[in-house]
């Protein structure tokens, strides 16, 4: 990663930039999508950010954490897009987050369609901040500190939110264990 950034900054290496883009695009696109809920706009936002990054590549080494930086850019752009022109700020609580699709891996656990639907419903009933934290930690593999920086909350909050998500999951999955509608493979 730092090798890529070095090549971009000091060698104007477009191939390195393309590699960076290909690594990050989908996660950032989804993050934008969570807020703006439109594919086209999410694509615009992410591309705009990368374009700017390319144009300011000479200052790349001033960025502490490229992931946090990019996610924050996306968040700011998305929020800016969503707020009414008359208001200066919009907060996360005012935004309706996009539906989170849940997909279970049959190679890891065998789950009935019914249970999968229940899991999806449960996760989408979580408060927006909770859903975002869960997604960013679990799927995007950001660390506690990174998520805290991106969402502008404390690390403790991230921990708590993640706990709430898992507890919710437990609520759905535990009863399933008593009934023969779910099996899993012993690893």
């Amino acid at each position, binding site marked *: 990663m730092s090798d890529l950034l070095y090549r971009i900054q000091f060698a104007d290496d477009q191939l390195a930039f393309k590699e960076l883009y290909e690594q990050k695009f989908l996660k950032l696109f989804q993050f934008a999508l969570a807020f703006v809920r439109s594919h086209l706009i999410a694509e615009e936002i992410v*591309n705009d950010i990368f374009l*700017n990054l390319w144009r300011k590549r000479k200052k790349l080494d001033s960025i502490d954490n490229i992931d946090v930086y990019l996610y924050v850019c996306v968040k*700011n752009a998305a929020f800016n897009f*969503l707020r009414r022109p008359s208001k200066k700020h919009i907060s996360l609580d005012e935004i309706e987050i996009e539906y989170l699709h849940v*997909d279970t891996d049959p190679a890891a656990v065998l789950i009935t369609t019914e249970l999968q639907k229940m899991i999806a419903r449960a996760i989408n009933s979580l408060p927006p901040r909770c859903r975002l934290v869960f997604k960013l930690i*679990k799927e995007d593999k950001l*660390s506690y500190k990174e998520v805290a920086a991106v969402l502008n909350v404390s690390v403790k909050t991230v921990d708590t939110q993640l706990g709430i998500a898992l507890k919710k999951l437990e609520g759905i*999955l535990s009863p399933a264990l008593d009934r023969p509608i779910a099996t899993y493979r012993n690893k």
Partner: protein
Amino acid sequence: MEKNRILTLLARKMGQVATSAELEELNELLNKYPEYHFIKDTSESMHLQFHPPATHEDALVSRNWDHLAEAMEEPVASVRRPVFTRLIAGLGHIPRVAALVGGIALAAAGYYWLPQHKVSTLHAGQLIARNGEKVRQLLPDSSFVWLNAGTQLHYNPDFGKTSREIYLDGEAFFEVAPDRNRPFLVHAGKVTIKVLGTSFNVRAYAKDSVVETTLIKGKVEVQLRNGHGRQILLSPNEKLTVSRATPTTEAMARSTTPVKDTYSIQPLVYQNDSTEYNEVAWIDGKLVFWNEPFEEVAEKMQRWYDVRIHFNRDDLKQEILSGTFEHETIDQALKILELTTRFSFTRNGKDIYLQ
């Protein structure tokens, strides 16, 4: 409770902050409560996506990379066409709407494109997409608009503050930011479209005899200029076509009461295996035509490729064509059409002659 402890440790593991001692503790607890293996495995192996599972991810990335690579080629201070609007806070501030840039583009391009338009006083907001290009822009109210080739759009000077009114000649796709106090109005020739917050496509080239409004999301109300104030409500995935009413008898032509425009509403259909409706395929860079006479297809191609097509054979104009062009050059596109239709073409710069 020990079961709660499992969840706490699981969270810490996911967040990459668990110490090795904590990981050991987790394993011990899992052995004690083996049913929690299920919960652990499920939570660790499931996938969470904000986009639907059917999304073709590779195509999505490569298509967007192509757009970006194109934009990277443009010199920064280009006034040739409006560039992306800067949305990023904290990285320098660039005006949210390149209105001035659009104005300059009009002055430069106006004389060879849409010759019937006078270059009069420039309005506060003007967007132009010349033949051969498409433009994406953010409006002052945070609505998004895409302009297809050969399109001109302007909006009132205090757009977003007192009202939101758009004047359109060409084709545009709108993603309208909700604002109950200021309905979004699009004046496009014979129709006025009123929107509250939605996504829709309007096709209203001055040269065409029809205006098409395609609704993707939300609700719009379309008012016909010559329909005696009739209002039509469109629901998602419907298309409204308004045809220019041509007087059919001399009496009608001489009559002083305005002739009504006719309209029809159709549900949108997916053609072939396409993943989007034909009406909005242009946003994804596809030129689509379906059972259309060559004359009309030529019209589309002229705007899309920025060429002039001359028919040396009249009968060719009525040939019915269907097809999709995405990455083809004009020459490749014409060669493809040659395969199924009997004609040949010669090209001299921007002029193409069909026989």
